[in-house]
């Protein structure tokens, strides 16, 4: 199977031109649209469907910096998607515990909306800093310490989980209003 970057004829890199990715995605999607295959044979219809599903998969993977980085690592033979490995970096995990404790207090804060927005901002900064470190390491995979990059990607997954938790707290609060 063609790699996701080659599918869009884009260079294999963590720094992707997202506008270009989106416009190429739309163009390819149109070319594979079922309407175009209305009069085609069953085999061609099936092929177009398979290609569409591959296209969507590739687009979703490349669109987000975290899944893109994970994919770049996968191209180097490091598969994080199916691993069961735990992380044991105590300092990072302590910080995670503190994050979780902070999240527990959001709804009951004097101004919960302000507390949520502050948490969002802090998390965003932490996430961006880590993502940038990952991306700059992945710019040249031949020089990168892949295990260190993998560990940073694992940490990013925790930060993304926190973001989802904050969103859930916000939604819950909206429901209660």
């Amino acid at each position, binding site marked *: 199977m063609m790699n996701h970057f080659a599918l869009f004829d884009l260079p294999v890199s963590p720094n992707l031109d997202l506008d270009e990715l989106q416009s190429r995605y739309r163009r390819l999607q149109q070319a594979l649209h079922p309407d175009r295959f209305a009069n085609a044979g069953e085999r061609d219809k099936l092929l177009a469907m398979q290609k569409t599903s591959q296209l969507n998969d590739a687009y979703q993977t490349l669109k987000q910096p975290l899944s893109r980085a994970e994919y770049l690592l996968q191209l180097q033979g490091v598969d994080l998607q199916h691993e069961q490995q735990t*992380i044991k970096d105590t300092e990072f995990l302590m910080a995670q515990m503190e994050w979780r404790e902070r999240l527990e207090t959001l709804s009951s804060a004097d101004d919960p909306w302000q507390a949520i927005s502050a948490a969002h901002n802090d998390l965003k900064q932490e996430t961006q800093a880590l993502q940038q470190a990952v991306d700059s390491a992945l710019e040249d995979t031949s020089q990168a310490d892949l295990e260190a990059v993998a560990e940073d990607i694992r940490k990013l997954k925790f930060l993304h989980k926190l973001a989802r938790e904050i969103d859930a707290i916000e939604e819950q609060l909206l429901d209660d209003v």
Partner: protein
Amino acid sequence: MAYSEKVIDHYENPRNVGGFDKDEHGIATGMVGAPACGDVMKLQLKINDDGVIEDARFKTYGCGSAIASSSLITEWVKGKTLEQAAEIKNTKIAEELALPPVKIHCSILAEDAIKAAIADYKKKQAAS
């Protein structure tokens, strides 16, 4: 997804939630996290001078299976020596709680938490 009765029991009545002062004599702390789901687990053991685990506490942020797995191991490790505790396998935890395959990582988290706590204890012993 349906949780087993044992998972629900531990989830609704978790045993030994909380913590000890990590700097106190004989306290070992194990921290682990599962990137797949973002769960974080802290397990603390109170170990006497004979190397026997007298008490255990946990704090886990995660799904019902992760909380049940940590609650269960705090019961299992009590009265065990460090060597015996180190032998607790995730498969036993998963079996006891009837965890489905997608939740096996919760039992791995619990096993690794015990190992991390024991490693912390040994590190502290070596330093003192």
